[in-house]
C-alpha cells in the first residue's frame, strides 16, 4: 500500500472515532493526530498524559509498575518489597528481562519476588508491624542485600500505613538504607507518575548519601548511563562503546545497577540519558544540585549511534572525540555487513509501533537503517515533551496515537496494513492471529540486546525472521484456500 496522504490519514482517524459515543469521541480525538513536521509544539496537535476513558481498553500500567518494575526493580543488590497483596509483584515478576550479573538470592535479587502478602487482617489492622517483621526476616535471610525499598501497592495508601516511620526506625536497626516509596497504583494516570515518584525517592533517600565522602577518585571522563534498563543486555552493549571511546562508566541506572553506583552518580561529569521519560527528573535534579549536565542519546541503529557518540564526544576533549571516531570506524565493517545482508530483505517494509515512553521515537532510526519505514507510532504514557521530540523523527502525514485503545489500534492496523507491528505482550497475540507479523518491543520478544552495534545485528536478524517467516503464508487452512485467495488475503500481501 502506498503512503497515505494527510487527508486519508485524517479520514481514517475520523472513521475509527465514529463508533464512540459523543463524549468519548471528543476526548479520544485529541489523542489521535496526523504528524506534521512543521509543528514545533506537540500540544497543538496531540494531548497526552491524561486519564484513560473508562470502558476503553488501555494498555497502560500503574504507578507501582513504574516505580517497582521500571526504576527500582533493576537495582540488583537491594531487595524491593512489593508491599501489599501478593498479585502486583508476582504477576509482573521478572517480566522486564533486566539482565544482571550476580548470584540471585545471595548478593543479587532481581528476579525474585518479595512481598508482604497482605491479608484481610492487614487491611483491617494495618500492615506496619508486618513490614517491620519482613525487614528483620530479610536482614536475617539475605545478609548481603545492600538495602531495601518499600514499594507501596494500592492498599497501603488507602489504609494510611506509615511506611516512612517504619522504614526510618528499621533502617537504624539494621544499619542499611530502607527507602519508602509512595508509588500506590492509583496515583497518576499511568506508570509515568511512578517513574517520577521513584526518581523523587532516589533524590530524597539515596543521592546525597556520599556528599561529604571524597574517597571516590573521579576522572575527567566519568559518565553515568541513566535510563537504560539493560533489557536483554542493552546497557552492556552500550557501555562497551562508551568505554571504548575512552569514557569511564561509573554507574548504570538502573539495569544491572547497584545502590552504590547510584550514590556515586553525583560525582560524574556528565549524565547520559537514554530513557528521557522515566529518568529526566533525577537528571534535572542533579544538574541543579551538583551542576552535572545531562544529555539524551540514542543507541538504536548505526546512524543514530554515530550521531550520539559524536554528540557525547563533543562534551569532552580531543582524546574522546578521536575515540568516538575510532569506535565508529571499528564497527563499520560489522554494521555494513548487517545492512548488506538484511536491507534487501526488509527494504520498504512498513512498521507501526506502540510502546512505552522512549522507543516509539528512538527505534525509528534503526528501522530506517534497514530501509524500513515507520508509518505510525504512539506512546502508552508519554507527555507532551516526548511528542515534541517525536514529531521531527516521524514522516509527514504518519499516524500518531496516544494511549491508543485496543479497538483503535486494531482498526488502524486493518487499514494501514503494516508489514510489522512492534508493541507489547498484550497486543502480540491479537495481531498475530490477525496474521500480522509482530515483535514484542518492550522486552525484545525474549531476544536482545538491541542497543549498540552488537544489538543492531540482533535487531536486524529478529525483524527479518519475523517479517519473512514462512508461517505468514500459512494463515489460512489449506482446504479453504482457492487460487484467488492467495492474492486477496491481507496476510499474504504483507508476508
Amino acid at each position, binding site marked *: 500500500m502506498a503512503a497515505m496522504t494527510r487527508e486519508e490519514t485524517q479520514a481514517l482517524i475520523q472513521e475509527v472515532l465514529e463508533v464512540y459515543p459523543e463524549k468519548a469521541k471528543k476526548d479520544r480525538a485529541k489523542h489521535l493526530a496526523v504528524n506534521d513536521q512543521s509543528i*514545533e*509544539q506537540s*500540544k497543538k496537535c496531540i494531548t497526552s*498524559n491524561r486519564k484513560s476513558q473508562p470502558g476503553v481498553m488501555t494498555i497502560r500500567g500503574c504507578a507501582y509498575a513504574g516505580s517497582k518494575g521500571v526504576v527500582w526493580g533493576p537495582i540488583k543488590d537491594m531487595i524491593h518489597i512489593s508491599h501489599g497483596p501478593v498479585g502486583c509483584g508476582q504477576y509482573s515478576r521478572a517480566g522486564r528481562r533486566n539482565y544482571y550479573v550476580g548470584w540471585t538470592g545471595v548478593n543479587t535479587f532481581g528476579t525474585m519476588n518479595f512481598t508482604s502478602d497482605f491479608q484481610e487482617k492487614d487491611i483491617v489492622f494495618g500492615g506496619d508491624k508486618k513490614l517491620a517483621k519482613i525487614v528483620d526476616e530479610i536482614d536475617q535471610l539475605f545478609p548481603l542485600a545492600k538495602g531495601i525499598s518499600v514499594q507501596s501497592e494500592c492498599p497501603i495508601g488507602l489504609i494510611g500505613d506509615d511506611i516512612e516511620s517504619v522504614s526510618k526506625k528499621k533502617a537504624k536497626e539494621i544499619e542499611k538504607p530502607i527507602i519508602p516509596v509512595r508509588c500506590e497504583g492509583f496515583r497518576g494516570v499511568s506508570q509515568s507518575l511512578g517513574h517520577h515518584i521513584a526518581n523523587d525517592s532516589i533524590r530524597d533517600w539515596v543521592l546525597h548519601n556520599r556528599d561529604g565522602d571524597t574517597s571516590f577518585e573521579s576522572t575527567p571522563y566519568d559518565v553515568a548511563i541513566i535510563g537504560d534498563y539493560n533489557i536483554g543486555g542493552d546497557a552492556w552493549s552500550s557501555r562497551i562503546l562508551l568505554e571504548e571511546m575512552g569514557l569511564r562508566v561509573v554507574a548504570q541506572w538502573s539495569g544491572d545497577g547497584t545502590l552504590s553506583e547510584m550514590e556515586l552518580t553525583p560525582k560524574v561529569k556528565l549524565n547520559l540519558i537514554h530513557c528521557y521519560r522515566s529518568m529526566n*527528573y533525577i537528571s*534535572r535534579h542533579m*544538574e*541543579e544540585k551538583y551542576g552535572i549536565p545531562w*544529555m539524551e542519546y540514542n543507541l538504536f541503529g548505526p546512524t543514530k549511534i554515530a550521531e550520539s557518540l559524536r554528540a557525547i564526544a563533543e562534551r569532552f576533549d580531543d582524546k574522546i572525540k578521536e575515540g568516538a571516531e575510532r569506535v565508529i570506524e571499528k564497527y563499520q565493517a560489522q554494521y555494513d555487513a548487517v545492512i548488506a545482508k538484511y536491507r534487501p530483505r526488509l527494504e520498504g517494509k512498513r512498521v507501526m509501533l506502540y510502546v512505552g515512553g522512549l522507543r516509539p521515537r528512538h527505534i525509528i532510526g534503526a528501522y530506517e537503517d534497514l530501509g524500513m519505514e515507520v508509518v505510525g507510532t504512539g506512546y502508552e504514557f508519554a*507527555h*507532551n*515533551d516526548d511528542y*515534541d521530540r517525536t514529531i521531527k523523527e516521524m514522516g509527514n502525514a504518519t499516524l500518531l496515537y496516544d494511549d491508543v485503545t485496543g479497538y483503535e489500534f486494531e482498526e488502524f492496523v486493518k487499514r494501514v496494513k503494516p508489514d510489522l507491528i512492534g508493541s507489547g505482550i498484550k497486543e502480540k497475540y491479537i495481531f498475530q492471529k490477525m496474521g500480522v507479523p509482530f515483535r514484542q518491543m518492550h522486552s525484545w520478544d525474549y531476544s536482545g540486546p538491541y542497543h549498540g552495534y552488537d544489538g543492531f545485528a540482533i535487531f536486524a536478524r529478529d525483524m527479518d525472521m519475523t517479517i519473512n517467516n514462512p508461517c505468514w503464508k500459512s494463515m489460512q487452512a489449506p482446504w479453504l484456500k482457492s487460487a484467488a485467495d492467495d492474492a486477496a488475503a491481507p496476510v499474504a500481501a504483507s508476508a
Partner: protein
Amino acid sequence: MPNVMIRRKDDGGLLFYVAKKDMEETIASVETDTADAWGGEVELTDGSRWYIDPISPPPSFPTTLRFKRAEV
C-alpha cells in the same frame, strides 16, 4: 505560583520547566536581563507570560524559581 526550573539549552537559550506539569518551553524573552538583574515578565514561545520579581545579582542556571502567571 509554580516552582519552575530554568536551565540552559544546548544552543544557549533558556528552558522553562514546570515539573508538576511536565511542561518544558523555551523562553522567548525576559523583561530584565542585564549584568545585575534577571527577571520581570518572561514570555515563552507558546505565548504564555509569567512573572518573577527581578533577582539581583542574576541567578546562575540551572536553578529553581517561583513564578507567578503574569496578569494580562
